[in-house]
């Protein structure tokens, strides 16, 4: 999957108001959805018999599956496996994407050397390389971490590159006229100016990491939430599959919230607009 990248100027969504929907309404919306799901599954099982009830478990069954799996410790084990891979792969991608992005944006020869290749690779959906990575790195942790790192590198690289490249030249001039040398300009102007873009890159990279880990765990793993889902498929254990999906979503959501908090702290200066 090639993610849609944001514009060069990072999306300036105010963190606090979000979409302007208060928490109460959010909770209500979700509760309503769960209720509807429950009604449909019960109606299907007891009244309509439209589908095999096994195929449409309700929230209650999924909840029970959750209790059961956490009692046996398997849920925790799978969560830890997946989160570990995501954090390791994502961390690797964030670091290399940032370094390569800054280097390519600031040093022209590197841009000439690397940009075309990266552009080319970026247009190939990372999942296309998954089977190959499994052959290279085996079904151990290495293949999954490498795969996430590869996939998540691109959004990180691109947003850093754009962020650094499109720093307002007036800011660079202003700094130079105040006595800043090139290293000062990188540290005090370019990086802070590129930071909103970099954070956007981190968020994109993270959601992509969750996206690909599930797929990777389908193909080559004996633990993790993706494995849990795929394993359940073999035995028609629908509640277990949904449990895996929901838990993955919740973890992804929590990580994303973490970034929002980080953004809110870092960008107090970014009120209505940019200067």
């Amino acid at each position, binding site marked *: 999957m090639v993610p849609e990248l944001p514009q060069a100027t990072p999306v300036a969504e105010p963190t606090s108001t979000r979409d302007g929907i208060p928490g109460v309404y959010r909770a209500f919306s979700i509760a309503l959805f769960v209720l509807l799901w429950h009604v449909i599954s019960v109606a299907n099982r007891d009244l309509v018999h439209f589908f095999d009830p096994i195929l449409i478990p309700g929230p209650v069954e999924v909840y029970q599956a959750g209790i059961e799996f956490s009692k046996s410790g398997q849920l925790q084990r799978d969560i830890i496996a997946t989160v570990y891979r995501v954090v390791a792969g994502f961390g690797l991608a964030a670091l290399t994407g940032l370094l390569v992005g800054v280097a390519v944006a600031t040093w022209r020869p590197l841009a000439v050397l690397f940009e075309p290749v990266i552009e080319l690779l970026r247009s190939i959906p990372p999942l296309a390389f998954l089977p190959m990575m499994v052959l290279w790195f085996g079904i151990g942790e290495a293949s999954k971490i490498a795969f996430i790192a590869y996939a998540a590198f691109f959004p990180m690289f691109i947003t850093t590159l754009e962020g650094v490249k499109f720093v307002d030249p007036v800011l660079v*001039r202003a700094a130079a006229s*105040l006595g800043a040398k090139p290293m000062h300009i990188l540290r005090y102007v370019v990086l802070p100016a590129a930071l909103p873009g970099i954070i956007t890159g981190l968020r994109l990279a993270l959601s992509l990491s969750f996206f690909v880990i599930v797929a990777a765990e389908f193909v080559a793993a004996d633990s993790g939430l993706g494995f849990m889902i795929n394993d359940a498929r073999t035995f028609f254990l629908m509640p277990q599959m949904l449990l895996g999906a929901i838990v993955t979503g919740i973890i992804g959501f929590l990580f994303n919230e973490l970034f929002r908090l980080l953004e809110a702290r870092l960008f*107090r200066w970014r009120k209505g607009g940019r200067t």
Partner: protein
Amino acid sequence: METSRDAHALAHQEPAAPKIRITGVSKAYGVNTVLKNVDLSLAENSFTCLLGPSGCGKSTLLSMIGGFARPSKGSVIVDGSVISEPSADRGVVFQEYGLFPWRTALDNVAFGPMLAGRSRVEQVATAQRYLAMVNLAGHENKYPSDLSGGMKQRVAIARALANEPSILLMDEPFGALDAQTREILQEELLRICEQKKMTVVFVTHSISESIFLADQIVVMATRPGGVKEVIDVGLPFPRDRASHEFVALEKRIKQSVREEVDKLGII
């Protein structure tokens, strides 16, 4: 520093060596010659306005004095040495403010002192002093996005002054402000210039602004850009925009600028 040749060449117009000397400066971007053969001498602590229609090369000339761009021919000499890069001794104020949006007003102003290696206490003291000088005491902790255009430009001026530069370069600094704010800031700039001895080069396309502020006005030529004439204003401060002399000079310069605008053809 002061060579006898310099002194000799300028003996008839300036008693001392000029602070800034522009000799035979041309600037071309590709085949497009923006400035041709500019010669100018700016005396120490003088206030010079570069006046001309847009596109005549005012910003280009200013950025060569700033050290941001290099002349294709000729040289810009400050204090007797050819300049090749920006320096903390030449403060710059831009029309677009150029404030760091992630820094508060105080930290924008403290930026120069910070780079100069001052202690944090000194940085803060200096920044507060200069913010007070531009009448922004009490706004230290605001971010640029919380400030009006006029206030932003005040911060930018304070930031340039905090380095105690001997030269202040301003590129249409009040161009984006409304008329009232603009006049207030013009008056404040004159007050500051009286306090701090600086050589100021101020780019504008407003004739009245240039007469209000400048010791000398450089009327720029167009096609190619260059110096058309240098006018010594010679009116006592504070200047009255409604006075006879002011209006007469305004009229005369308007004529001169008009000729250059006409050279550009239909606008």
